[in-house]
């Protein structure tokens, strides 16, 4: 049987989408230029619009957009209410200032609101909002369950726990809605906090019952079958995992302390390698196989690569031309779109051409 037929060719590896989206997010952290940030948002939104499939998780994108907007507004609100250390000359409005005791020095409530402070807060909030939008794009494009399926075999149980938790959330919401509806049928008010609290217990009971039923079903379908492994392999696994974790700890310590600069990196890497080998060996205990695993196809690599290219270009630009990426706030200047970084951001559009969602309605 040809290898390719046991792989879902039409869908990309979920890891590729996450790498692509996180790279765009990292690129966003390198700049405060509102034009570049807006371009990043537009690029990710365009890719989401062309590539997302009609799946339950793809609806989360709107939620992330709202969250990003909320973050931006909260950041602006803080700048208005709490003031800002940015010196500025363009006073827009002077709010009544609340006198605060001495111990709260450095905190100010109300007072002068300058255009500079507002613009600074806007740029800063926009950066955070862009990051959130990128994470939302990853959520909308990659099936979280398939991503968890790509975990190494030894972590399989952990992955299942997360998958089950993920499917439980929608069930729980449906339960709450159903029980609140039932309150109306009893002639009790079905809105308000009290109504919500009173259905809490039945909802939890239902969730508990459902988890017991699911556990029984999983057990009956062979979940948790283990294979016999020779004691030698078992011991090696334990040694590798424990040793690896110790190595990671020691390496991190070395990196963070001043005198450990020389041994930090190699010990960390060796520890990581040992831990990964331990995980791989530990996978032998579970006889599980995978049905149509997601493979890193050329398209997946290109998608991940396009994201990485954007991040790399932004890093280079932030070193080569920091002024263009961080438009001045004091004094206020209009931001200009730096040509080369903007062109680099457009590389992030590649997935829209590589993996557009199928056109036919999925029914």
């Amino acid at each position, binding site marked *: 049987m040809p290898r390719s037929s*046991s792989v879902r060719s039409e869908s990309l590896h979920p890891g590729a989408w996450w790498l692509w989206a996180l790279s765009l997010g990292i690129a966003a952290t390198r700049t405060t230029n509102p034009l570049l940030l807006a371009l990043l948002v537009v690029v990710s939104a365009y890719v989401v619009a062309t590539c997302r499939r009609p799946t339950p998780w793809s609806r989360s994108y709107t939620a992330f957009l709202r969250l990003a907007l909320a973050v931006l507004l909260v950041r602006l609100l803080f700048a208005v209410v709490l003031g800002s250390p940015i010196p500025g000359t363009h006073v827009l409005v002077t709010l009544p200032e609340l006198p605060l005791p001495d111990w709260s020095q450095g905190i100010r409530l109300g007072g002068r609101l300058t255009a500079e402070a507002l613009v600074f807060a806007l740029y800063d909030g926009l950066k955070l909002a862009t990051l959130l939008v990128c994470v939302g794009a990853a959520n909308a494009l990659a099936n979280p369950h398939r991503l968890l399926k790509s975990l190494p075999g030894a972590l399989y149980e952990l992955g299942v726990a997360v998958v089950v938790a993920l499917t439980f959330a929608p069930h729980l919401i449906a339960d709450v809605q*159903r029980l609140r509806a039932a309150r109306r049928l009893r002639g009790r008010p079905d809105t308000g906090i009290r109504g919500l609290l009173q259905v809490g217990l039945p909802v939890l009971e239902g969730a508990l019952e459902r988890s017991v039923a699911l556990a029984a079903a999983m057990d009956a*379908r*062979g979940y948790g079958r283990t294979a016999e492994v020779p004691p030698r392999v078992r011991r090696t696994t334990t040694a590798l995992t424990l040793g690896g974790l110790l190595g990671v700890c020691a390496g991190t310590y070395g990196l963070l302390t001043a005198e450990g600069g020389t041994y930090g990196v190699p010990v960390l890497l060796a520890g990581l390698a040992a831990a990964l080998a331990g995980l791989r060996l530990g996978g032998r205990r579970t006889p599980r196989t995978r049905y149509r695993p997601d493979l890193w196809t050329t398209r997946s690599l290109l998608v991940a690569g396009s994201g990485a290219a954007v991040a790399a270009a932004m890093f280079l630009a932030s070193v080569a031309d920091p002024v263009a990426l961080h438009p001045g706030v004091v004094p206020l200047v209009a931001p200009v779109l730096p040509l080369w970084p903007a062109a680099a951001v457009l590389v992030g559009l590649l997935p829209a051409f590589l993996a557009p969602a199928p056109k036919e309605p999925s029914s």
Partner: protein
Amino acid sequence: MIRFEDVSVTYDGASEPTVQGIDFEVPEGELVLLVGPSGVGKSTVLGAVGGLVPHFTGGTLRGRVTVAGRDTRTHKPRELADVVGTVGQDPLSHFVTDSVEDELAYGMESLGLPPAVMRRRVEETLDLLGLAPLRDRPLATLSGGQQQRVAIGSVLTPHPEVLVLDEPTSALDPAAAEEVLAVLQRLVHDLGTTVLMAEHRLERVIQYADQVALLPAPGAPLRVGTPAEMMAVSPVYPPVVDLGRLAGWTPLPLTVRDARRRAGDLRERLAVHVPTDNAPAAADGGTAPPGPPAPDHESETGGAGGNPGTPRRRRAFRNRSTPQAAPNLADVTALSVRRAHVQALRHIDLTITPGETIALMGRNGAGKSTLLNTLVGLVAPSAGTVQVGGAEPHRITPRDLVRRVGLVPQEPRDLLYADTVAAECRAADTDAHAAPGTCRALVTDLLPGVTDDTHPRDLSEGQRLALALAVVLTARPPLLLLDEPTRGLDYAAKARLVRLLGELAAAGHAIMLATHDVELAAELAHRVILLAEGEVIADGPATDVITSSPSFAPQVSKILAPQRWLTVAEVRKALS
């Protein structure tokens, strides 16, 4: 293939064994049907096959259960996963993954089958169960029948030798049930799979069984025999068997076809008793629903109260001219409902008058529940108007609502919050502003013998339904709605429900029930409304609508066609 040797199961904290003296064998490649009233331990017997009883449920199992030579005492459920596939009552609680294809592969992944084999078996199973067009669909978006087929498919892919099914068709509409049963039939015939199955709706499954294992009463020993032998002594039986017993046919016919071939005599005997109370309905069959019956004339129901087998009240409503002045309890005009980009209801026109009983039928997802929910204001109409008791239900407060209309939801447990029956009743009285004791009196009426301190969770399905019904009735709503009331009820509980609803209708309540149960509709309803894709495709007297459709016709009407009899009770009455 499956062997029970003198098995008894006692759950922790129970004084008596739930089942005892179970001793039988299911030979390879047979379909064995486990039959019995509610609460005799059918699920326990089924669970014991896969090892879930007692490994998962706790309790003590005495005796020995072996499946394909493996003792469940020494093998945990997961070690039996390659020989036993178990599907429970609720397919949704069975699913581990989120899409059809992954769900089918899950069991094989656990067993560690090679990827190429998994791929081949998933494709085969998709074809076998007709699921190929749904392969990428999220499980939550499937209809009930589709979900049940996926659940069966998901345990089929590891090629188990034994399939254990608990109520596989109870929640399904007639067509979807046929689908699932056709698949089972095919598995038994083509793959030699051994099937052990419990099902309340015997009229759907009895014809497929090779043997019947009967648990006649709690604690009684299990009896095994051919379906005809067992049906002759079983306390639960489908209408076709009931009719066969009435007519004294031996051996008992189990299918409509067998019964029809022997029904010549019976038809002749019945020809002189034209079903009188159906005649007026047949006469005005072409016109719209029969006129609104008035809520009086309880006295005319005659034997109904005394004879539990013949709940006949229809007579009271049919033989009279129709007073047109009676106000409608509900008026629905040009109602459309759109929910989440789905047109759930399209342009529905409907009136409900006092005293009539309406059965709302149609396949899963046809909009039955949406229509009921619209009538209690849980769903607001997107277009058109709904008037219940002179008010728009989605605009009035819950307190006003319960006096106009009451709904018993699909899961009656949703309505019950309290720890004891007494507390539940007190709460219901307060909610409905009824005199203290109103609800308790109703409960005593509907559920004789249930004590105040019983926890609603400990009641059987039928008792819980009755308690929820009592809670709803406390507010005396003139319009009573029930969503799938017979799910999980055995024939005895169903007969009690039929009697009860008949009495309520005679007392002037209008009743509308959404149901897949054609036999229930035949016994209760004056009027049947068929929904398809959110539209009313038929609305008329029960006799006309259900006898004209092969999938909605009850067994008796199929057997005695062209005479228009609907239930065994009618026939019994005519013959006596």
